[in-house]
């Protein structure tokens, strides 16, 4: 991706088609990333929408090859903004709890929705499909349980396929920290899967 970025740096503006293709290609993974973090479908969709609008508004003049890194940075910031706002809101909710009924957003399990909507996977038989869906459910739950920074590093590095330097730039930390986060995340996931008798 880095070489591509340098190659297209002189291009002035991502075309509408390039931006459309980029967003269409990244939107579902972006939604899942947000969902792993916030565990709320609506909030995750809002975060992705905000990130898309910010990208189009602020960085519409950037070359298409720079969009992935910029979008990931915006998306991660939008997720952090969500937690900041929720922290402030929960403070007010605590203060006003005597006047307003408490609404627990954590009760809903967003992965249940995904479970039911996952649909058939390829040409596998019913047993294999069920196994695949169970594995997906298990992995998504384990990823959602990871500490935020480890999850962020692991998904950026291995799902978005950014290199270590790019991941560090998006996360605003050192490359060494990225490696540490990724290593710990992978170790935690391997242990969790092994505990369920699954070896990938």
């Amino acid at each position, binding site marked *: 991706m880095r070489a591509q970025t340098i190659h297209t740096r002189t291009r002035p503006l991502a075309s509408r088609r390039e931006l459309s293709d980029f967003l269409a290609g990244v939107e*579902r993974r972006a939604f899942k990333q947000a969902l792993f973090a916030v565990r709320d479908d609506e909030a995750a969709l809002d975060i992705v929408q905000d990130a898309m609008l910010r*990208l*189009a508004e602020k960085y519409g003049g950037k070359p298409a090859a720079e969009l992935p890194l910029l979008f990931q940075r915006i998306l991660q910031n939008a997720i952090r903004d969500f937690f900041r706002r929720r922290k402030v809101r929960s403070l007010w909710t605590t203060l006003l709890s005597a006047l307003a009924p408490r609404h627990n957003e954590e009760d809903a399990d967003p992965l249940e929705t995904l479970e039911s909507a996952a649909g058939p996977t390829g040409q596998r038989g019913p047993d294999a499909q069920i196994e695949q869906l169970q594995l997906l459910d298990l992995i998504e739950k384990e990823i959602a349980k990871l500490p935020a920074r480890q999850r962020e590093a692991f998904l950026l590095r*291995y799902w978005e396929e950014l290199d270590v330097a790019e991941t560090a730039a998006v996360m605003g930390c050192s490359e060494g920290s990225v490696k540490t986060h990724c290593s710990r995340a992978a170790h935690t996931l391997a242990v969790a899967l092994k505990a369920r008798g699954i070896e990938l």
Partner: protein
Amino acid sequence: MNEPLLARKIRDVLDSGLKLPPEASARLAVARERALERHRAVAGELALAGGGRTAAALGGPQRLTRLLLPVAFLVAAAVGLQQWQEHQRAGRMAAQQAAEIEETDTKLLTGDLPIKAYLDEDFQAWLKRSSE
């Protein structure tokens, strides 16, 4: 544990779960369209800005207005001051001329004017002009 290998297998599993519920897919499509509309609007603004590079170089139309407004005020003040000074000078000259005529009239009435003055043709002409 081979971290890259494990990560690749996990990525494949995650990719298999990217089929979203129809409502979520529809919401994402709407969000994408909004972003594209915004992109088109921004691209249009950038094209318009190309025509106003001077304004942009000075920091945009608002900043240009902020710079030009005091300059216009200074020019208007300078023009006003110059006109006021001309008006004052004309007034002073008129007053001086009136004083000279008054002095001559007084001398004529009191007979203090030298006899040569009555013989001077230029003085006669001046008196005629002043009395008109």
